[in-house]
C-alpha cells in the first residue's frame, strides 16, 4: 500500500501531560511524526494538536483508532486535503550586507515575506504559507548564506462548517 502524508487534527482536553500521552502512544506504536503543533482552541478546555504523519491507509486507521482510546482525546480525524487550509510559519536569518540586501529584499517581496529584523551583518525574514511555498523560498535563499532557520510545523483547518463534535 502506498505511503502518503496525512494531516491529522487531534482535539484533546487542555490538561498537563496530554501531549505526552499522544506522542508516547505514537512512539510506542512506531508512528513517525513529521511535524506537530499544539495550542489551545477557542474553547479554553480544548487544545488542538495538528500532526503530519507519513503512512499507508492501514497505519492511519490504526493510529486514529489507537489515539481515540486515550481518555483525554475528544476527537481525532484526518483532514481532507482538498478542502483544508494548511499553513506554516518560517523565520529565516540570512547573512546580508550592503552588497546583497537589495536582492534579498526583492526575493522577499516576490514571496510576500516580511523583513522583521535588519542588523549590520544579517536580516531576518518571516514567511507564512503552505509547506511547498516555504520550501521554495528556502531554495532560492540557498543562493545566499542562510544562518538560522526555524519552522513551526504546520497547522490546519478544514474549510466551511465545523463537522465534528467534541
Amino acid at each position: 500500500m502506498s505511503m502518503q502524508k496525512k494531516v491529522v487534527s487531534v482535539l484533546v482536553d487542555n490538561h498537563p501531560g496530554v501531549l505526552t500521552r499522544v506522542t508516547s502512544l505514537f512512539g510506542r506504536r512506531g508512528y513517525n511524526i513529521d511535524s506537530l503543533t499544539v495550542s489551545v482552541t477557542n474553547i479554553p478546555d480544548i487544545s488542538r494538536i495538528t500532526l503530519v504523519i507519513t503512512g499507508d491507509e492501514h497505519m492511519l486507521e490504526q493510529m486514529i483508532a489507537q489515539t481515540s482510546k486515550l481518555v483525554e482525546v475528544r476527537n481525532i480525524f484526518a483532514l481532507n486535503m482538498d478542502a483544508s487550509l494548511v499553513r506554516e510559519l518560517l523565520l529565516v536569518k540570512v547573512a546580508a550586507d550592503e552588497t546583497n540586501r537589495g536582492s534579498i529584499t526583492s526575493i522577499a517581496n516576490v514571496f510576500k515575506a516580511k523583513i522583521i529584523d535588519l542588523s549590520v551583518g544579517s536580516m531576518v525574514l518571516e514567511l507564512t504559507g503552505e509547506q511547498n511555498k516555504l520550501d521554495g523560498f528556502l531554495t532560492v535563499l540557498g543562493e545566499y548564506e542562510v544562518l538560522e532557520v526555524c519552522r513551526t510545523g504546520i497547522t490546519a483547518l478544514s474549510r466551511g462548517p465545523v463537522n465534528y463534535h467534541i
Partner: protein
Amino acid sequence: MNLTGAEILTEVLIEQGVDTIFGYPGGAVLNIYDTLYDYQDRITHILTAHEQGASHAADGYARVTGKTGVVLATSGPGATNLVTGIATAYMDSIPMVAITGNVSTSLLGRDSFQEIYITGITMPITKHNFLVRDVKELADTIREAFRIANTGRKGPVLIDIPKDITAAKCEFIRKECINVQKHTEIDLDKIEKAAEIINAAQRPVVYFGGGVSLGEASEELKAFLNKAGIPAVHTMMGAGVLCHDDMHNLGLIGMHGKSSTNNVIGDADVVVAIGARFSDRVALNPKYFAQKATIIQIDIDQSEINKNVYVDYSIVGDVKQVLNGILPYIEENQHLEWMKKIHVWQDRDYQPTDSDSTLKPHQIIRILCETTEKDTVYVTDVGQHQMWAAQYLEHVAPRSFLTSGGLGTMGFGYGAAIGAKLAVGNSRRVIHITGDGSFHMNLNEACTAKSYELPIITIIMNNSVLGMVRQWQTAFYKKKYSHTDPQRQTDFIKVAEGFGVKGYRTTNPKEFTEALKEALTQKGPVWIECLMEKDEKVLPMIPAGGTIDDMIMD
C-alpha cells in the same frame, strides 16, 4: 461531611462496592493506612510480602469475580513494584485500580525521598492515570477511575495521590455508584451481512478469546454455536468459556494448540473471530492465518480491527450484545461434512504417553482434575507448566483459569491465587500450578497465604531447569543451554516449612495422588513438589512466525 483525603478515598472505595484491597504501607500512604485502620470493619486490607504480589492479587481477584481489583502502594519503590502487575493486567484487559501515594505536592519534581514519576512510568500500561493535585477533585477522580477500568475494553487505571492531599480536608457527599456500562450502537446492516456470510459458509469456525469471558458472553456464544452448528477454537485466554466436553469446542489454537485446531483455521472458508486479537501466539504468521477464509471480527475495541490480521468484515461492540443481535439471523445448521473432516484431523492429534514410574505433565493435570472439584479455580505462572495446564485441564467455566496471557509474567501465580482465594472464599477451591523457575520469582507470598491461612494448593512442577526457554534452546539453538540449567539447591519442602507451610515431595503418580488427597484436607497453604524430567516438552509446537506445516510433534 468534612473529610480528609484519606477518608474520602476510603468512602469512595466503599461507594464503589470495594470490600477487599491488597497493598503494602509506606511513608507516603501513612494517612491512608491510618484511615484503613478505622475502616477495617468495612474494608479488608490484605498485606502481601511485596507490592508486586499485591498487584497480582488484585488482578487475580478481578479475573475470578469480574469486579475491579484494587491495589494500594506507597510512593517510589512501592509504586515501581506495581509496574509488572499493572502491565500484566493491561495486556489481558483486567479491570484494576492502582492507588499510589506520592510525596507532598510541595516536594513533587524535586527528586525527593521516595519520589517517582509513576504517572509517567505507567502511561503506556494503563488505560488512563491521574495525579490528584487538589483534594476537591479526589472523589470524582476515583469514581472516574473505576468507571474507566471496568467499561468498554477493561484495564488498569492508576491514581497517584500526594501525601498532603490525603491529609487535606474538604466537603464530601456520598454518591450512589451507577453502573454505566455503555450500550453501544450496533449497525444492523453489519449484523445481517455477517449472518449472511455465516449462513452461506461450508467450513465455518469460530475463533474466540478472553473477550468473551470479559464480556460475560459465554451463554450467548453457546447459543450461537448451537444454532449455527459451528465448531469453535479458542485462545489460551478463552479457556473455560466453553466446557472442555462441549461438542462445539475443538480446543486450544496457536503455538501450543492442537494440530487439528490449527488445521481447521487453515482450511476454514469463514472464520468468526470473537473477542480475540490475532496475537502472534495464535496468528503466528499473520500472512498465512486463515488464508482461505472470509474473516469476520467481533470486538469491543475498534483498534483491534485490522491490527495484526486484515479482516473482511468487522462489528465493533459489546460481544454479548452483538451475539444476541446476530442470533435471530442465523440459520440452523450442523455442518456434518465439515465435522467429519475435522474428526479425521482430531484422530491425528498429539497424544502424550502415560508413565507409572515418573511424573508426566499431562498425568499431573489429569490427577488434579480427577481428584478435585469440577469448579476449582486454577491459577498458573508462566512457562511450560502454564501451557500444560492450558492444554490438559478440563476447563469447565469462564473465570476459572487465571493466567498471564499477554505479558507472560513469571511470578504472577502466587499473588493471583491469593487474590482469587480471597474472592471466592470457602465456596471454591484454588489451585496454583507453577514451575520451579516461576515459583522462585515470587514464592515470598507464601507468608501472605500463611498469615491469612489461605488453603491454596501450590503444585510445583520441578524439572530443575527453565524449561520453556530450554525447550527453545533444544529446538532452535543447537542444545546450547545458556543459563537455563541453574543447578539450584533449593529444598522446597524445607522452604515451605520455613514459611510454616506444609510441603510434599512427589516423584510418581501414586505419590502425587496421595499427597494431593492429603493436601485437600489441609486448612492452610500447601505445596506439592512434582519432580520431573528436564527434557519434558510442551507439544505440539509451532515455532514463532511459522505455520501448521512447521509443527513440531516430538
